[in-house]
């Protein structure tokens, strides 16, 4: 097993608030890892630190053996890490297709190639039929899928997904889960923030649990849901695996 991404003693504070505290984990290539934890646990901050949107206060991030923390987000993306935003950020005045094309221009200058990649990305998240729609005509779950398609167009080797299945009906979520599994079988490594435990159990081979910025547990989904600390802090008494 080779580590595609390695996060070492990663910390980030905002003023007095420590949002991420001495976090360590590694991502194995071609696997889906879930990053879970209660609201405010530091999951999105972790994404921002890996993707270059934020600089760590201390600690390092290695991608394919290279230290990348502090690298600007556009360069991190070009190295092969794509991310979605929890609060969706569609390009307002561009169509769904055009939105999905932007990422392709990180590896091609050909509009034709970008268009065909964009269709492929939209197809894989089930949005191909809405390619010519304006983004404000999309429902919120669709906009989250558009975020995923935009990220896929950059041809990432590591994909960071921040709650992209929120608001989906169970059948729709199952469809996305299948897409993620197919992508992972094709060699893509995925780090997924997700609150619905059923989805986490189904899709992730490894789970990292954050609480108050610190990692409190890591392991297979079955191990994690049996962990007393996780039950106490996040899943609560009502949870049955």
């Amino acid at each position, binding site marked *: 097993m080779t580590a595609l991404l390695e996060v070492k003693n990663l910390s980030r504070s905002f003023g007095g608030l420590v949002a991420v505290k001495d976090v360590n984990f590694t991502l194995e290539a071609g696997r889906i890892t879930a990053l879970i934890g209660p609201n405010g646990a530091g999951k999105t901050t972790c994404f921002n630190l890996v*993707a270059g*949107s934020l600089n760590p206060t201390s600690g390092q991030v290695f991608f394919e053996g290279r230290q990348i923390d502090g690298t*600007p*987000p*556009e*360069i991190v*993306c*070009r190295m092969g890490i*794509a*991310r979605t*935003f929890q609060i969706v*950020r*569609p*390009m*307002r*005045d*561009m169509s769904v297709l*055009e*939105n999905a*094309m*932007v*990422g392709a*221009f*990180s*590896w*091609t*200058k*050909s*509009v034709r190639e*970008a268009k065909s990649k964009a269709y492929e990305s939209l197809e894989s998240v089930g949005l191909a039929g809405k390619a010519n729609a304006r983004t404000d005509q999309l429902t919120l779950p669709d906009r989250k899928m558009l975020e995923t398609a*935009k*990220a896929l*167009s*950059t041809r990432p080797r590591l994909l960071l997904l921040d709650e992209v299945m929120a608001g989906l009906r169970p059948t729709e979520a199952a469809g996305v889960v299948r897409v993620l599994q197919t992508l992972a079988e094709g060699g893509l490594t995925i780090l997924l923030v997700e609150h619905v435990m059923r989805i986490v159990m189904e899709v992730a081979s490894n789970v990292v649990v954050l609480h108050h910025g610190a990692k409190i547990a890591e392991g297979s989904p079955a191990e994690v849901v049996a962990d007393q600390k996780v039950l106490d802090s996040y899943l609560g008494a009502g949870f049955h695996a």
Partner: protein
Amino acid sequence: MKRWLAGAMVFIVLTLVGLFADPYFISLMTIVLLFAFLGQSWNLMLGIGGQLSIGHALFVGLGAYSVGVLYVKFGISPWIGLSLGMIIAGSVGAILAWLSFRFEVRGIYFALLTIAAAEFARIMFGGWEFVGAMQGLFFPAPTGAIEFSMLRGGAGFYYFVALALAALGIIGTELISRSYLGYVWRAMRDDEPAARALGVRTFRHKILVISVSAAAAAAGGGILGLVQGAIFPDSIMGMGLSVDVLIGPVVGGLGTTFGPLIGSLAAIPLNHLMSAIGDSLRIPGLNNITYGIVLILVVWLLPDGIWPAIARLCKAIQAPSRVWLPHLRKAEE
């Protein structure tokens, strides 16, 4: 395709205007076309690249002075002057952009910086004896003979130069819009952090779009100087000109290919008409007041500008026929 047919028809009409209209109208339309082109350059920067300039007169003036100084002082062809002006303005734009984005000056603060730079240049040129200082720089009166290599000729000749420039502006904008630059620049305009997350190197693209816009503005400025026959720092580099440049695209439709032309066609003749009426009624300033009111009305009633409103209207008119289109297609098969 239909857009291009309409565009071609507009240019045929404008060609006929140049051949047959009376001299006053031709010189008015020359200014309209030049400002359509200048507006296009500004539109590329804000409407597509998302970078606001309120000091475009800086680049216009650099182009005009490059042409003027080389021609008047050294007898060098305006073609060389235009090229030099574009290089100088493109570099000044790039340096200005680099400096401000390097130090995180952006958005409205960058716009303020463009005003400051234009005002600085205006005062500098106004005190520079070699380029005529406040007295300005005068081109020799045209003989009327057309001399293409020196870009000299009468009013009719300059009309067609302006028309060619406006056409080049529209074609250039459309080509850029459809290339990868158009997509990347619009993404950067709509959401810079999101564009960066998708691998868009926004720092260099912002510098590039500003530099291209500045170089185009300088080309328009060089021709404007020739058309007016004289260059004065207060008019060619003044705030007033910076505002005149942006009125066309704002009225016509920001970020659209045909907006700057439509906007200039509407706004500049209106301004001239109102000032003529004001003169005859002996009400000085009537033009500015009416002009202001009309602009406010346009921005208020048609916030996207005139061109998108026309485009929507055309679509609405065609909508019923679309119902029949699938049937027609089937009939063809």
